[in-house]
């Protein structure tokens, strides 16, 4: 949430600035604190909000009540939930200067592992949450493997996670024998049929993960380290931050998010399949980048990521409402990604030009 100083404030002579700060006591500081997050968030996310509103407007104009109904809103959010959760994990990795291509496969692997006959038997014997913990452990484990390879094994993130992407998918196929494993743990499926306050379970999970992610990135030392490691790993290291360990944590976090995604997929489809989450990593990266997180690292925004996910899923919904093909939608998505990245570069250049 950095705020670029305006040229005007830069030109205030030093003496005056000091005097003003002393004169008005803490007030200036308070003002600035209150103003900055608002202005920063609004400034950065305004474009995304406008884009989302535009998509919604198109939806409303073309599909009317069908689009603007509560049920449809929930349909959009349910569709967004799995992608949203892994995109939040991905936001941390990308902000930290990395990339995680394995999340889609890890969704598949964790959903398969959590729905094997053995796991389901245990879940029926003990508690349905056995399946949840299995999926989370699988996701976390895959993430830790990624993290250790990248941080301590010095394997480039792109390669390490590409390897995990291929291997996890293969392992999922081996475990499931390429078949769909139907969940026959009624307690598990029932949990995902709940809708507290009329809002489906998947959407609640998405919301909780988003809030936790926001707090983690913006309000904790973990988030600050993430920005530092992504912005300038050498500077972070020379400031005493354990860059390797933190890098490992980032991939573990992303793996955990993919594990949560696996559970959600299992809840939504009541079936574990090795094809679950296929190519979700690309959608997640697209949503994160469109959201305004720098692909090069050093700046990340959870709000932007959530908006990015919502733009893409709402777009999908509008296209379906209007009977338009997925292919046309893919073209629209591509255009959105390119436009968003060009805009990002413009903004970055402008901020740099204020020397």
């Amino acid at each position: 949430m950095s705020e670029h100083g305006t040229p005007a404030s830069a030109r205030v002579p030093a003496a005056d600035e000091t005097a003003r700060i002393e004169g008005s006591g803490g007030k200036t500081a308070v003002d600035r604190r209150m103003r900055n997050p608002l202005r920063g968030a609004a400034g950065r996310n305004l474009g995304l909000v406008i884009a989302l509103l535009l998509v919604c407007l198109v939806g409303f104009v073309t599909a009317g009540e069908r689009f603007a109904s509560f049920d449809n809103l929930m349909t959009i959010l349910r569709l967004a939930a799995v992608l949203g959760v892994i995109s939040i994990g991905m936001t941390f990795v990308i902000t930290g200067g990395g990339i995680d291509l394995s999340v889609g496969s890890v969704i598949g692997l964790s959903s398969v592992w959590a729905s094997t006959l053995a796991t389901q038997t245990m879940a029926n014997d003990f508690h349905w949450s056995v399946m949840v913990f299995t999926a989370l452990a699988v996701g976390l484990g895959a993430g830790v493997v990624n993290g250790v390879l990248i941080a301590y094994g010095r394997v480039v993130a792109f390669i390490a996670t590409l390897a995990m992407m291929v291997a996890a998918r293969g392992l999922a196929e081996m475990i499931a024998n390429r078949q769909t494993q139907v969940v026959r743990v009624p307690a598990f499926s029932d949990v995902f049929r709940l809708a507290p306050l009329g809002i489906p379970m998947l959407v609640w999970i998405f919301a909780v993960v988003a809030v936790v992610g926001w707090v983690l990135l913006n309000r904790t030392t973990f988030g600050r380290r993430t920005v530092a490691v992504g912005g300038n790993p050498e500077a972070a290291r020379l400031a005493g931050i354990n860059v390797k360990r933190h890098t490992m944590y980032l991939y573990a976090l992303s793996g955990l998010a993919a594990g949560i995604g696996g559970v959600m997929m299992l809840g939504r489809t009541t079936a574990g399949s090795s094809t679950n989450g296929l190519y979700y990593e690309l959608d997640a990266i697209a949503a994160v980048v469109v959201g305004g997180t720098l692909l090069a690292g050093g700046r990340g925004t959870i709000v932007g990521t959530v908006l990015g996910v919502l733009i893409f899923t709402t777009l999908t919904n509008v296209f379906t409402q209007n009977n338009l093909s997925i292919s046309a939608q893919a073209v629209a998505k591509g255009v959105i990604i390119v436009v968003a990245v060009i805009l990002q570069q413009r903004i970055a250049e402008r901020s740099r030009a204020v020397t």
Partner: protein
Amino acid sequence: MVTDDRSTDRPILQMRGIVKQFPGARALDGVDLEVRAGEVHCLLGQNGAGKSTLIKVLAGAHQPDEGQILLDGSPVTIAHPVAGLKLGVATMYQELDVVDGLSVAENLYLGHELASGGFTQRRAATQRTREILRRLGHPDISPHREVGSLSAAGKQIVSMGRALSHDARVIVMDEPSAVLDSEEVANLFRVVRELTSQGVAVVYISHRLEEIRQIGDRITVLKDGRTVAGGLPAASTPTAELIRLMTGRTVEYAIPRRPPVAADAPTVLKVEGLSLRGEFTDVSFDVRAGEVVGLAGLVGSGRSEILETVFGARRATTGTVGVDGRAVRAGSVGAAVRAGIGLCPEERKSQGLLLDEPVYRNITLSTFARTANASFLDEPTERRTAREQIEALDLRPSDPDRTARTLSGGNQQKVLLARWLVHGCRVLLLDEPTRGVDVGARAEIYGIVAQLTAQGVAVVVVSSEIEEVLGLSDRVLVLSEGRVVHTGPASAIDEHRVLDLVMEGSAA
């Protein structure tokens, strides 16, 4: 050293009343510059005085809003960089704009390849490149060599060669010595004299006053986008006068005198038998509380590597580092920081700062975890601490929310110093503390070092400016090819002696 027959009085380049307005800022507000053929004309000014904008206007990268540019007495418009080159004005930027993957010859003729019928004439280009390199006194560089394999000095030669390939009559050099060590600087000066003797005018920008005295003929001083003095004789204008013109203040350029280190001051940092394979061997020294120890030597003598190893950023092959009598775990920055060691690294931008993060977060980068409550950041405290440091160090602009990128070199250095001041350290390692720092801020940084020692901090300084090392330090270690060749009080040695020791060391 400046002979009048070298430069004629004929002005080859005149810039009159140049104004350049950017949104929200008037970068140039009436600049006059007159450069004669065959002279080295130095452009002096603090960061932000408008030097960079001026040379961009001259190169055609920016268009002036007002004012006139005359070449050989006739007004010209330099609409874009290529037009500038055609008119004979070439610019060598600080960040050398050579293409690493291409050969020397290809770089020289980049953008104006010698070609006939769409085919590049490689042989002709090679031939002419060879001539140009000879003119620059570097027949040793092969035209076929890949530029990426050359040193910074070599790349600079290529960059100059490119200017000559355009038959440039005016060459602008933006801080050409910033990336060079003293030997390479000497060579650079030889090339510059060679060029001026052929009637080429050189506009030379540098922060180093001693260089300007050595190579310059006349000086133009810029301040706040205006020319405050033009055509000053480089050899005879007093330093104090130049500083006054640049800063508008009178600054004591001299390094502040510090009281001698108390005889009973305890040893804080103890380095024993430290070696790093391929970099340096068997380095031992002590630093007492309040003492400054300098490491002098050329680039490649291992001086920066020693600091990084003491700091744990590199893992020593052998040897130990101790602070206040306790050994510090080797190869761990975290352990060094916990033991109270701080490092202001050589490359501020790439090793020290989060350029796109606000100043206050850069200041608290080593301490935010300490001020946090159960992992939740305490930003109010961070800002308050940062603000205290900003005031104490007179960091300008004083806005803690400005991004670090927008600060000048001197203020970026202050941010790094502030980081360790907030952290509170027993040992501060300074690697090139004044590189790219203008004269005013330099004096302030020296002042901060003096304050720190007064508080009992042990300081180790590395600088490629031997004068600075000698001036700041109580004791000096002279390094040559990774070995300590001399240890002694700084007052008992001078620059020439240091260089002699370095040469003897490398001959041995």
